[in-house]
């Protein structure tokens, strides 16, 4: 399953995209996130995968783009290329 967390508004599209078939739930991205907005949770089919915490889904457009300048961010530390984003 591909899960798009985020939204689109007048200023652009802000989605963090998780490919749950690739994600093995190792939690590396959760640890590296400086803003602690990710969590591991079982999806509806019982597999533990990463997701964006509910309370942050509507604000990732303000939080995540700052990571562009960081070498270590969720998407770069994932060994399975399970994460991508639209900004």
């Amino acid at each position, binding site marked *: *399953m*591909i*899960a*798009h967390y*985020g*939204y*689109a*508004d*007048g200023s652009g*599209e802000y*989605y963090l995209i998780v490919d749950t078939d690739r994600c093995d739930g190792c939690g590396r991205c959760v640890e590296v996130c400086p803003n602690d907005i990710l969590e591991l949770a079982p999806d*509806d*089919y019982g597999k533990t995968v990463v997701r964006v915490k509910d309370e942050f*889904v*509507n604000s990732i457009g303000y939080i995540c783009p700052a990571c562009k300048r960081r070498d270590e961010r969720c998407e770069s530390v994932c060994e399975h290329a399970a994460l991508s984003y639209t900004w």
Partner: protein
Amino acid sequence: MLVAGVDVGSLTVKAVILKDGEVAATTTLITGDDAATAARTAINEALKSLAERGVSATLDSLDYVVATGVGRKEVAFAHEVKTDVRCDAVGARHLFPSVRTVVDIGAESCKVIRLSKKGRVEDFTANDKCASGTGMFLDTLAKVIGVGVEKLGELSLKAKEPAKISSMCVVFAESEVISYIHKKTPVEDIIAGVHESISNRIFGMMNRVGIEKDVALVGGVARNVGVVRALEARAGENILVPEAPQIAGALGAALIAAKACEGGA
């Protein structure tokens, strides 16, 4: 076997009771500010209508209850909670076995879910950040226009030339609508313009996940035939709409509950 699905939405709570796998009763209530109580009341109301038909049961005697919707985590008596995405998928698929793309337009959110041939969720996106593309957008603009929201659909079918509403944001769209009213643009054309604006937004989300046929529209806004037509025109696809689109998520939850009882969730 008696199971229930309850969908706690931002505006309404929906409950569906299944008796031996068949829909036996449904209710829809306003959520108010106490989601847990609303969920309980919705199920009790449904049970009451069952009792009138000679099936007596109480909330505690239900074999399994699955909760979904934004307020799902507050439903303490549920045996299990499932995301709206999964419940919408299961519900829509039950109503239309051929469905591959499910669009759910609710009061304050909208979702597009793409399913595999076998009905598994392959991709989804949700918007609950802004009002555009939701029931709230329609409600707000219906008030400005001075028409009951339930009449929008019918009226818009009479439109000759839909007004262009370029803003996605409800606040700006509202002022566009007001200026059309001042220009004496026919009400039908303004409403049709509002529907086009919503369908543009939804179509953008549909493209994000990719459209596969057949397409179904569920959620309360699906009762508005004007939105259905506008979205069909925009997407160039026929759109399936169930008879009671607002209960699709609750139905999905109830079906998941029934499956859990059979022993294989």
